């Protein structure tokens, strides 16, 4: 088991956001976390990497409990995180952005170099010295994924990678994610777009108002149109 989340509860100040979240991700698996805006997808990711201070529950990454570790320690174990807002360093060039993400090589995860990433995202290779602030939304999305891959993660949390992108760029994104999967990276991808999720995922969880209300394979989800219609806006 790559990642196992048990009884995760999170609060923002006095507000209780996540209720007893349980998730599992196998080695090399791509798992979708589906749900509407505000359902708790981003908070789940932020809680896993320790960016939400008030949280309880167990988070096992490669069998080790990381729930009491600071963010940088969790991430440098090989748990990569790509935030929804992208958070590119706008003053830094593409290459410098990648440099910030660079971590030592890991035995149980694919090794990414700049050149390998420029092959995966050819657009980035053409603008190595451009500041992050002068890139389009799609290019920034590619850069934020490439930046996380520079850390040679064995698992990546991808928060809404298709959001706000043109169909053409979304296609490239699907290809990139499938390449990552082929290289052996486990992925949890949060999505509102069921179609996109189907193209890349093996299994799916549905989250609604901070609770997991479905977990199963994509085929099982297809067999339950009631759940799909109740919890996902199409």
């Amino acid at each position, binding site marked *: 088991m790559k990642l196992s989340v048990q009884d995760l509860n999170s609060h923002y*100040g006095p507000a209780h956001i996540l209720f007893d979240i349980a998730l599992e991700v196998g080695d090399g698996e791509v798992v979708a976390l589906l749900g509407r805006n505000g359902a708790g997808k981003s908070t789940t990711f932020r809680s896993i990497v320790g960016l939400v201070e008030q949280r309880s529950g167990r988070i096992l990454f490669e069998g080790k409990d990381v729930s009491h570790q600071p963010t940088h320690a969790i991430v440098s174990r090989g748990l990569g995180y790509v935030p929804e807002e992208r958070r590119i360093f706008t003053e830094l060039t593409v290459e410098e952005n990648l440099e910030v993400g660079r*971590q030592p090589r890991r035995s149980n995860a694919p090794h990414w170099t700049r050149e390998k990433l420029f092959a995966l995202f050819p657009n980035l290779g053409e603008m190595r010295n451009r500041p992050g602030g002068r890139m389009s939304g799609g290019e920034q999305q590619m850069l934020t994924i490439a930046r996380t891959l520079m850390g040679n993660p064995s698992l990546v949390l991808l928060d809404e990678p298709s959001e706000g992108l043109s169909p053409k760029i979304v296609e490239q994104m699907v290809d990139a994610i499938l390449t990552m999967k082929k290289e052996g990276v486990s992925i949890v991808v949060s999505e509102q777009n069921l179609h996109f999720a189907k193209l890349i995922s093996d299994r799916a969880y549905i989250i609604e108002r901070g609770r997991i209300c479905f977990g199963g394979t994509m085929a099982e989800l297809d067999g339950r149109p009631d759940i799909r219609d109740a919890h996902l806006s199409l």
Partner: protein
Amino acid sequence: MAFYIVQFLTGLASAASLFLVASGLSIIFGVTRIVNFAHGAFYMLGAYVAFTLTDRFSGALGFWGGIVVAALIIAAVGVLVEMALLRRIYHSPELFQLLATFGLTLMVEDLVVLIWGPSELLGRRAPGFKGAVDFFGQNIPSYDLFLIALGPIVLGILWLLFQRTRWGVLVRAATQDRDMVAALGVNQKWLFTSVFAVGVFLAALGGALQIPRDAVHHAMDLRIIVDVFVVVVIGGLGSIIGAFVAAVLVSELNAFGILIFPKISIILVFLVMAAVLIVRPWGLFGKQEGPARRTPGLTVNPWRTLTSGERLAATAALIIAAALPLFSGNYALTIGSEIAIFVIFAASLHFLMAVGGLASFGHAAYFGLGAYGVAFLAKMAGLPMIVSLLLGPLLGCLGAAVFGFFAVQLSGVYFAMLTLAFAQIVWSIAFQWVTVTGGDNGILGVWPEKWAASPSHFYWLSLGIAALMVVGLRIVVFSPFGFALRATRDSPLRSEAIGIDGKRIQWTAFVIAGTVAGVAGALFAYLKGSVFPDSLGISLSVDALVMVLLGGVETISGAVVGAIVYKALNIWLVSQTDLSKLVLGAFIVLIVVAFPKGIVGMLETIRNRRRSASAKSALLASPIETAE
């Protein structure tokens, strides 16, 4: 002509140290978002340690090695400070960070006197740079030429460090988004510590390099920190290039200002700073920041007017205070008057900080202006006491109107730095313009008239005015103006969206606070019978800040309690120890780290907790950041 060129080169040489210290401050601020008030103290420590090392070890190696080793030693001290103190307050409101580092400065000032003694120390000349170069009949010290070359070299090294190393890339990334850097697996703790070490190294190096030029003394920290604040305000906080350009600009203005206004040379720097602030409030090379990030307090605590019971209690306390002359002697009454005056002063700053969200580090300027106003009117114009008392504070009002206009263009740390710089400018004028202010000798013989001359009468006068001022300020807090001011404090954007002219409101608050401080200063002049530049000084501004903090920043009238407790403690402390700054500094650091809510704030929390122990409204006490 040659004379002007030499003057220009002297200015450039002075710019080197200023640039080193200012760039260190900028680098630290960029990543940690802390304006390190203690930066001047590290500069001073660098100079003292370098003095000792170069004195102890002879030869060229002893000198240059001593300079570098001194900077390294102080950088190591900086690392300890960062780990022991700053790590605890990175998430505190910026006011607390400013105060804690200021407390550190005070401690260092006393420690330095304790270790090296109070007298000035003359350092060694630099080996190889002892002579002077003849330039068309004018002499230029060759050490100045060395410093002129050093500035651009350090600038170049810093540029390479930030552009060409992984550390530099990480620092620049963290300057923009600290959390994202952590989310990419970088341990911020050590990044912060290393940045702090580099910044402190630069400050200490700046100090160490000054020893062949200037005497080493225990007040050099405040002198440099004011210049550095002016530099970073002009150049833009966070920009190294800005620090360089502004350091050169300020040094040249100082060098030539002496030729144009020999008595009040600092005026020229002030005019340039004002011009820059109007055109680019965030500095020549700085970037515009979003609106203020946070309220100065720790929690959002709904304010309410006093209940009738509390009103009775306050009135009773006032009556008891008024009965003091019935059972105590003249000395106690003089102290009582002084405490009443400081209640007025602290309440005025508290109004600006707690209600306006504007933490002024130079509030003594308006206190002192009020005092000088009275001295001018009573001594020079010979006006009666009542008229002087009424008109004297207007000088404070005028000063607040002029400086406040510029200060409210900025917020947060910029506001703090600017108010401190303004206060220091007013202090310099009072100190240097001897023909008008008497300079260091002050203005003597400002005694109250017969009707107020006896200690009991003067005490009643001070107490009455203090009560009036505190009640008046409370009325303002709960007036529509007060609500608009609090709205601007909590959310500049939203209050602007409902039609509140934030800048005008804050300016008005600044003028109110300055005028009330002027009232306190006016009374103070009569209490002491004299006025000195000290009444405008930084230490008085800090006293006021500590009174507010001690009472509680989030309270409505905590400053009253804070002023009484602090002033009484202070008078007692000065009679007990020579190291009052050391104790005071440690006290400030302790409050910030351990009791950030202050006396009244803690009492309120305890009362709230008791009242709502069953009602489970931890909501009031839990930290809520203003969303922006």
